[in-house]
């Protein structure tokens, strides 16, 4: 569940050569933009502290601006940032941690990944820091701290934005077909043949990325049985996946796949080049389940689509007879910044100052709102109404703040080992290569690992 790059989608088709060249150019750009960050564990180079984060619009300029503000205000303890492309970063940071070459500040998604850093004694315990700086802690959404907490201690500072998963739809397509947005799972299944009859894909899905498929499981399980089922898995209870609600949910998913609910060839589409979103704004697909960050991508790439008000959005509808609270949502309750336990005392000091000043200041809040995101800072809703994207931002703010449960994405909540098995099985489920029962058996095998 990841803040995908907002890079302009390579429009494919007949200009494949150009697309290849563009992709190459993108590859060149996505490497580290600052070489000096590579070898520092803190101390060498221009700054005392190093900061690794993700490259690409809209996040990179905002992160860069934050570092610049900090460096201007603290000429004696500068921060040197390095930006990486999303997928490259995930491997790079693991390798760096394993080799004791980690940066001072480690950007991440919290949850199971953070837990593995904690178990490896790689990150600093920030519980005391937040106790001493209660004012800073008070500024941040309390719900964002869940994924930053391991064994009752806080190991990361929530930063940037709240990103719930949203059901997007193309209003023009709904008008053309003469149907209404679905209010329940039954209505979703009823809509599928209607769109298919018009040669419009009911749902766009970038299945090769696997976490995209996972969002369907997360919502369906929550709506049918509530958040308790996955909580049991997360808590490591034996055979927690054997809950009958899970089988029911998996069968529903395969029913939707069999009914051609997803765009043609969905399993070979990767989310990285945003072509799943292109299907929605070009009207080739009617609906799409995606993270709130997708709004910014559709706005940038979809021409007049978002501006003309053709993009509809809603929370995932309830399932008939389901026990889950329909206000519940899933996604990223925030992004997270940890401090390396191997950093020098000066570097740690600079990092803490960065967290307690720059990352919670007004400029930071304004920057993220302008990018179409809802900051994790309390009271930022007052500023949302002045944004051109006020409606969507209000919707995200309400969805996040009114949700009875804001669950973290499964692949981020679980340990990397269990997450990989989960994603693998989900891909096979959508490919109809496995049955719901085999899925459950296979997943029960990695509980607590």
């Amino acid at each position, binding site marked *: 569940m990841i803040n995908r790059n907002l890079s302009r989608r*390579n*429009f*494919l*088709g*007949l200009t*494949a*050569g150009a*697309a*290849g060249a563009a*992709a*190459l150019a993108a*590859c060149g750009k996505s490497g580290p933009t600052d070489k000096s960050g590579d070898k520092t564990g803190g101390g060498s180079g221009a700054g005392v502290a190093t900061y690794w984060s993700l490259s690409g619009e809209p996040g990179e300029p905002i992160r860069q601006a934050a570092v610049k503000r900090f460096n201007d205000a603290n000429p004696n303890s500068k921060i040197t940032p390095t930006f990486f492309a999303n997928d490259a970063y995930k*491997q790079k940071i*693991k*390798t760096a*941690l*394993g080799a*004791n070459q980690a940066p001072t500040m480690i950007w991440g998604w919290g949850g199971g990944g953070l837990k*593995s*850093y904690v*178990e*490896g*004694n*790689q990150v600093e315990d920030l519980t005391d820091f937040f106790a001493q700086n209660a004012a800073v802690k008070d500024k941040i959404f309390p719900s964002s701290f869940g994924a930053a907490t391991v064994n009752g201690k806080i190991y990361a500072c929530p930063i940037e934005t709240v990103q719930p998963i949203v059901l997007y739809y193309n209003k023009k397509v709904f008008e053309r077909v003469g149907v209404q947005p679905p209010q329940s799972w039954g209505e979703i299944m009823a809509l599928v043949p209607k769109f298919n009859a018009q040669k419009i894909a009911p749902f766009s899905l970038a*299945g*090769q990325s696997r976490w995209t498929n996972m969002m369907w499981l997360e919502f369906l399980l929550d709506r049918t049985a509530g958040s308790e089922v996955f909580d049991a898995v997360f808590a490591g209870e034996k055979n927690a996946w054997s809950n009958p609600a899970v089988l029911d949910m998996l069968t529903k998913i395969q029913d939707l796949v069999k009914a051609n609910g997803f*765009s*043609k*060839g*969905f*399993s*070979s*589409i*990767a989310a990285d080049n945003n*072509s799943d979103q*292109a*299907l929605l704004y070009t009207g*080739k697909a009617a609906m799409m389940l995606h993270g709130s960050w997708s709004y910014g991508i559709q706005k940038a790439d979809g021409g007049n689509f978002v501006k003309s008000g053709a993009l509809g959005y809603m929370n995932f509808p309830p399932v008939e007879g389901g026990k889950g609270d329909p206000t519940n949502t899933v996604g990223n309750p925030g992004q997270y910044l940890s401090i390396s336990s191997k950093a020098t005392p000066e570097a740690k000091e600079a990092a803490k100052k960065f967290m307690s000043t720059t990352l919670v200041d007004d400029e930071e809040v304004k920057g993220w709102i302008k990018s179409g995101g809802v900051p994790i800072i309390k009271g930022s809703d007052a500023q949302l109404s002045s944004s051109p994207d006020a409606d969507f931002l209000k919707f995200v703010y309400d969805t996040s703040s009114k949700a009875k449960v804001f669950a973290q994405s499964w692949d981020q909540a679980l*340990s*990397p*080992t269990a*997450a*990989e*098995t989960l994603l*693998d099985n989900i*891909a*096979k489920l959508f*490919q109809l*290569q496995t049955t719901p029962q085999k899925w459950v058996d296979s997943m029960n095998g990695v509980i607590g690992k």
Partner: protein
Amino acid sequence: MTTLAPPVARVKESTTSSGGRSGSVVWMALPAFLMFIAFAIIPLLGVVALSFTTWDGISDTIEPSGLTSWKATFTDPGLPHAIWVTFLIMALSWLVQTPISILIGVFIAAHKRYRGVLAILYFIPLLLSSAAISITYKALLDPNFGVGAGIGLDLLNQDWLGDATLAMGVLIFVVSWQYVPFHSLIYQGGVRQIPVSLYEAAQIDGAGRVRQFFSITLPQLKYTIITSSTLMVVGSLTFFDLIFVLTAGGPGDATRALALQMYKQGFQANLMGPASAIAVIIVVVGLLLAMLLRRLGGRADESMLEGV
């Protein structure tokens, strides 16, 4: 007939004559040997050692755990599947590449200008990186925005990378597209080594082109075929970048070869122990295959030019 033969035998003589000085030139192999130890042998030993440990790749402590990783690897149902996929890719890519490479190699071996120009064009895929090739093909084959959808040709508009069988076919095609030029180059060199006298003799005996190809060219290329096959077979064990970018092992696990399985275990699931075990398996299988192919080639000192 023998009078027409070029002085091939002398090559052999010269090696034996230089053999007398070989004692003094052994040190020349030292730099290569040191590099080999530093970048192949030592990491290999490291991987073998890691396969007997439990490590998540992040923490400071690497715990020895005996055979745990090996047991986990061999009980993983994904392993037989990954081995099957690997050998399927190996066999299919060999079957597709070898005939095409030989034919192109023979074709461009002739000293004609237009063939020289064509030869240069054939080599272009070799200049591109696998990642670039994969990204381009992925774009071309996109089910919604690719060539098929662009021209509106239904035949081209398949679920190329989303259907298990088609995805494997596309993979073999792209692999061949990339590596056929390289193997053609090897065969071109091999064909040019064949003494012209053999063809002249065959012509006098009234053998046609096809007969000449099967009775002279192919048998003479025996060692070239073995060299090229070894490179193909052992190389296909380590295909990673191409598959990773093109299908990421999908759909499902339809194209998940051993190298990909290793990467997923090590760097995505944080299981360095089992990943190292898979790496050891890849090395052992690769060595066995290379030795087997050498055996197939018969005695190393056997000359293809005896009696010429």
